[in-house]
């Protein structure tokens, strides 16, 4: 069922939209990278709330657990490990803001025009997807991507450890 647009629903939706877009603007524009990472956390929480809006509860919980809990933590760790070189005397990271703004607005304009032109159906859609159907889909129709994701995880972990591991001590090679 399409969510009906009552007044409370519209108010919550506009509040979430404003929160997400303001935090995304902060992600793009803040010079302090730690605050930009925290704003990304607010964006991820807002997107999880929007997932709740379209009856995707499991996806909202996975978004909070994985994205905010793991990926954002990883990004914050990396920011803290490389923070010594972000001295305040360095120039502000605002290169080519004009052309970038033009390109971004052009992309958004094109996408918004296409979205508004598309004939959105007014009738109610079929019943919302439930968790049982999602689980059944993951192990019957989508079992191949589901298993390949495991391989991708292993490859990513091995690759990340191989890339980020400390190099061997040179005094062993000098002997």
């Amino acid at each position, binding site marked *: 069922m399409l969510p009906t647009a009552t007044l409370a629903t519209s108010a919550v939706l506009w509040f979430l939209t404003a929160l997400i*877009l303001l935090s995304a603007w902060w992600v793009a524009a803040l010079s302090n990278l730690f605050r930009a990472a925290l704003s990304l956390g607010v*964006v991820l929480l807002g997107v999880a709330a929007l997932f709740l809006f379209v009856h995707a509860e499991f996806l909202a919980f996975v978004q909070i657990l994985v994205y905010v809990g793991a*990926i954002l933590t990883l990004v914050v760790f990396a920011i803290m490990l490389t923070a010594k070189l972000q001295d305040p005397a360095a120039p502000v*990271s605002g290169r080519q803001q004009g052309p970038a703004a033009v390109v971004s607005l052009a992309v*958004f304009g094109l996408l918004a025009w296409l979205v*508004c032109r598309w004939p959105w159906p007014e009738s109610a859609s079929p019943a919302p997807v439930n968790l049982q159907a999602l689980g059944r889909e993951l192990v019957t129709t989508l079992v191949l991507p589901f298993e390949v994701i495991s391989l991708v995880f292993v490859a990513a972990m091995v690759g990340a450890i191989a*890339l980020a591991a400390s190099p061997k001590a040179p005094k062993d090679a000098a002997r």
Partner: protein
Amino acid sequence: MILKHLVLVSCALFSLGLYSILTRRNAIGMLLGVELILNAASLNFVVFGQLYGMVQAQAFALFIIALAACEAAVGLAIIMSLYRTAKTVWADQAQLLKG
């Protein structure tokens, strides 16, 4: 029309992520923009899945989240390795191919 509103929000997130990638000098800042774009794509998937009543959309959004985790891990490992060798995280200072 709530679903059209949500798709427009995902388009705005996409363009803000694009702006973040284009203007940030710090490599980790560019990674934050990539995460914004991935979130916009998964929101788009879920909204259209709700429109047509298909469950594969939520499964694809799960795969997007999983792949974003892998990509963030590998990307940050590359940035750590760059920081260790070139002593910088500014993307425009990593100009030499030789270590």
